[in-house]
């Protein structure tokens, strides 16, 4: 189980509380957040983009992506 760093791009609906949903998932399931950036999505005021670096083995990475996709206000999750 090799620990690797990876970066996620997460597009979320611009709603109150959405950032705590994303962060809450990480604390609830014991995933790492190494760096975090949140900002507006260019030319789209209804959505925001979160860029996050995290670390974990392959199985953890897959779980993080799948669990993020289950959050109702998360529109898209991409590994970049």
């Amino acid at each position, binding site marked *: 189980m090799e620990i690797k760093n990876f970066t996620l791009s997460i597009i979320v609906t611009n709603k109150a*509380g959405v950032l*705590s949903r994303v962060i809450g998932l990480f604390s609830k399931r014991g995933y790492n957040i190494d760096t975090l950036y949140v900002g507006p999505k260019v030319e789209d005021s209804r959505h925001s983009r979160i860029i996050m670096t995290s670390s974990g083995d392959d199985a953890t990475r897959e779980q993080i992506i799948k669990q993020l*996709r*289950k*959050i*109702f206000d998360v529109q898209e999750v991409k590994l970049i």
Partner: protein
Amino acid sequence: MKLRGAAIVIETLIAHGVTDVFGYPGGAVLELYNELYSRSDRLRHILSCHEQGASHAADGYARATGRPGVVIATSGPGATNLVTGIATAYLDSSPLIAITGNVSSNLIGKDSFQEVDIAGITMPVTKHNYIVKRAEDIEDTLCEAFQIACSGRPGPVLVDITKDAQIAEVEFYGGSPKALFAVPETDLDAFEKASKLIDESEKPYIYCGGGVISSGAGKLLADFAERIDAPVGFSMMGLSAMDCDNPRKLGMTGMHGTYPAIKMNEEADLIIAVGVRFSDRATGDKDEYRKNTKIVHIDIDDAEINKNISCDVDIVGNISESLSALCKVVKKSSHAEWNALAENYKREAEAKFTGGFNPRSIIRAVQKFTGKNTIVATDVGQHQMWVAQYYRFSNPRTFLTSGGLGTMGFGMGAAIGASSANGAARTVLFTGDGSFHMNLNEFATAVRYKLPIVVIVMNNNVLGMVRQWQTLFYEKRYSQTVLDRVTDYVKLAEAFGGTGYKAANLEELQNALDGAFKSGGPVIIDCAIDRDEMVLPMIPAGGSYADAIYN
């Protein structure tokens, strides 16, 4: 039509086919209750004694009917009292809609009287939640809440509505339900891969969970088992998915599984897991569980695949559709020797039982009075495991128990929810003396609404399950598990306006049941059992199937 926000809430519930809601009033939901007052002919409200009881009742209603259960509570303590109920529903994927009032939007964030951030508190235990501060948003939000609670893998949704939003008058558009979200398409290759493993397997074993019940796939699962000639073991949540007369049914697997289910699970060369999440209580040591077997995992929730147990093939999608598609591609096979082994294990297990007044004979005596449609709820502890082991369930949604969270106190509320959906049919609650003391106030609710609930207290005067661990793993140091309470359950029942019986042997139990099943209201039967009775088999926590203690 213009309506106040609070009226829109009630009308939207009615538009969603909700007939019963459970709850408790207070300052922040005065508006809601005021609108409910003039609509009580279209929506029945069941007033609990404590919001926790109401939350379990709404959950029990959902589990028993398959329709979302609705609970209403006021802000602050009313809302926090729901948390255990919401978490219980979350862990068992039950579609619960919790509606809370909150202080007016201008008072939010000021530590106002009875203000709590219930959305923040329940974020980790809801599928989704909302804070609604504008009357204009109530209708759409509530419709979306139903949509989320019932789509895909069901789960609880909380909608917190500020008082000013309940008061303001806005246009109402009818509150009609939205279509459920589409389930992602299943990868067709997966069926080929799965059928190859199934066709090659000599010792296939089906592991059926609560997802099969949610998906209404019990009949399909039985057909599938027939086609591939495999025995079927169950997670606790899945136990009522299959008829008890089906010879393939092995009973519950896992920590307190039945002997045949544990043995067959252990010896299988292929586990076809349907609608399960491989909880630690079901698998024990995960590496050992996985070691000598292949696994096909069928579920609606992609995130369950490879979460607890890695699998060889996964089929993600609606379980009913997946099973019927799989049935079409697998070969019809026969595994006579393998199934004969299961029959052997069943006979061996049966031979061990002794007579007398014990948990098994009590459960079987109660079962003589019930039918396949009777809903049976439990609390949490040894009595719960005995019911899972010995009660012979047949029809989906007839077994209501807190599996994932293991919530003592769940049973009385759940029985009320089920009973209120079930008219004159009797609902049975098996509870423990410890668990019953947690929410026995709700017996008053059952009396008030004349709900025919038969409460069987398996009274060992101890916190039996915890004590069992102390017996086995803590040198019988019975720290705080001996209750030594002198509660008189007959008087208790009578004090609340119900009926009580005491039973110390099978004959007395028989007489009590005769009376209880004729009574129109709730009844308590206090069954004294030996405190040293243990739940066996037991796979010690973290141990593997091979470590199971049988005697």
